[in-house]
């Protein structure tokens, strides 16, 4: 996983609520067996509309997505995270996220930042007024900054530490392999197996 400490970049305002993962990456893209090439499928259906915000050249190169509430609902497809990252996003800011999407993001190093809906709208308006403004997302200080403004966001200590260090979860868990073995030895014998 790519480590994340602080990131400064331009942003795209996506003024839609309930952007489900089927919109982020339509199912037809999920047939790939590799982990790469998903940027082409990002918002594939919406990008066919020339007026869709990602098609606006003023937002080219943006690395922060300012999304509406309930971003990433629906399907568990981690491909949605891969598509956003491979397109160039490092951060998604929204008032609420789908639980599985949020979890998948933190496994991959895409930072999901929860701010109040009112604040997200202010940031969207600021970016719409001047698409060149740069927003800083500081995971160390747990703060989003734009010009003179600064907004704190919550993230649990453990996830923050993992992201800052860029640590692989499996490696961390395997440090406790003895605990897993001890647990396995105490499981009820009548629990089912697939064999």
């Amino acid at each position, binding site marked *: 996983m790519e480590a994340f400490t602080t990131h400064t970049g331009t942003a795209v305002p996506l*003024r*839609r*609520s*309930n952007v*489900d993962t*089927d*919109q982020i990456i*339509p*199912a*037809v893209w*999920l*047939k*790939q*067996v*590799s*982990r790469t090439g998903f940027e082409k499928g990002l918002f594939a*259906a919406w990008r066919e509309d020339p007026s869709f915000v990602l098609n606006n050249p003023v937002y080219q190169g943006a690395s922060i997505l300012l999304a*509406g*509430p*309930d971003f990433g*609902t*629906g*399907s*568990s*497809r*981690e*491909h949605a*995270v891969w598509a956003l990252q491979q397109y160039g996003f490092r951060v998604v800011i929204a008032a*609420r*996220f789908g*639980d*599985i999407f949020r*979890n*998948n993001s933190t*496994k*991959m190093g895409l930072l999901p930042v929860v701010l109040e*809906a009112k604040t997200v709208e202010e940031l969207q308006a600021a970016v719409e007024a001047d698409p060149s403004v740069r927003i800083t997302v500081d995971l160390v200080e747990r703060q989003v900054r734009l010009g003179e403004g600064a907004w704190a966001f919550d993230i*649990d*200590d*453990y996830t923050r530490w993992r992201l800052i260090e860029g640590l692989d*979860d*499996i490696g*961390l*868990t*395997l440090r*406790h*392999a003895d*605990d*897993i073995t001890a*647990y*396995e030895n105490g*499981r*009820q*014998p*009548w*629990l*089912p*197996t*697939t*064999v």
Partner: protein
Amino acid sequence: MGRTLAEKVWEQHVVRRAEGEPDLLFIDLHLIHEVTSPQAFDGLRMADRKVRRPDLTIATEDHNVPTVLGPISDPVSRTQVETLRKNAAEFGVRLHPMGDAGQGVVHIIGPQFGLTQPGMTIVCGDSHTSTHGAFGAIAFGIGTSEVEHVLATQTLPAYRPKTMAIEVKGALPYGVTAKDLILAIIAKIGTGGGQGHIVEYRGEAIRNLSMEGRMTVCNMSIEAGARAGLIAPDETTFAYLKGRPHAPTGADWDQALAYWQTLRTDDDAVFDKVVEIDAATLTPFVTWGTNPGQGAPLGSAVPAPEEFADPTERAAAERALEYMGLTAGTPLSEVAVDTVFVGSCTNGRLEDLRAAADILRGRTVKTRTLIVPGSMLVKLEAEKEGLHEVFKAAGAEWREAGCSMCLGMNPDTLAPGERSASTSNRNFEGRQGKGGRTHLVSPQVAAATAVTGKLTAPADLANQ
């Protein structure tokens, strides 16, 4: 203070707990399918890791498979399925491939084999894993990174979600189904209503549901934002499990049963959130928009965006009506559909097929109608009862098992602008094929709609 069912099951599975860290949770059953697993197996190979517990892992082919006999013609889909076969063979995981008697939609086959049991933790790289909560298990969908984590360690690091009770008071009126109930619940609490929570469905109407109905309700927990939904096990659960291939037997059954009977929320336990629903007021329910929360009674009209006080909801409604090609004020019962789909992990079980057959018996469909059993066993059982003859006589298509038209990954799709009445779980834009328009309905409404060509409640079919 007492504990909720979800807290009891969670505590039972904590391998390791440390201050300031998520719990390390043991996973009793890991379900695999072709779409969300290839990159996870690749990860194992790159790190030279094995599957820790192949004996707690099972795989099936469902999302990509065609529902007509024959090979997969799409080379990309075929590669994905072949990749699963190679991975299952290399890592020693039991697989039910296309054509196998045990093949089917991943959330249909777990319960069918008796692998889904009360008090377990169950995961799968699929958000509808919540289905298995119907047995009193904590079951939730995970992404591919977590699939790899479970393959390698049989555990997941996770914070325990908050708890939420949905109390369904009273009894469902005649003709109102589990699907209508869950659609009404989602419309009430919204697509984000359950975020961060495990939902426990409770109350008389829930107790009265069959296991199939309970699975339909728990299946759509994720559409209300809850990663998991569960129902306390009871005599209905135990009767369903008894005699299934992987259910315990003899003295093991007695021991398991004694444990399962403790799996209920204590009377003095406190939920973080409580929602109440009055079952007696419910009627057949359908969606009109592009998220599962945009639903209304079938007897009502397409809502006007101005009816929504919240500006975000109003904007979403406007956009949804445009996508769906609907005009505010149109009675939902006048909305004409092109295709009817009965199937999926939400409504692809035998009880669902029986309900559709009861309505189609002696009638003729006016629309393209796909009836897709959720598993090969469901197909076999339905054919033993002659249901396939009923469907064929009515002019519907009787298919092989798979996810089919739920998600637009296999040949069963809608054409752009085409409209469906579908027993699946998601009405997202393009979910059933690019430009397709989906109305979520119960199997009963789906069948009645096939007969008239418009969204129809079975009660309104009386004279047809």
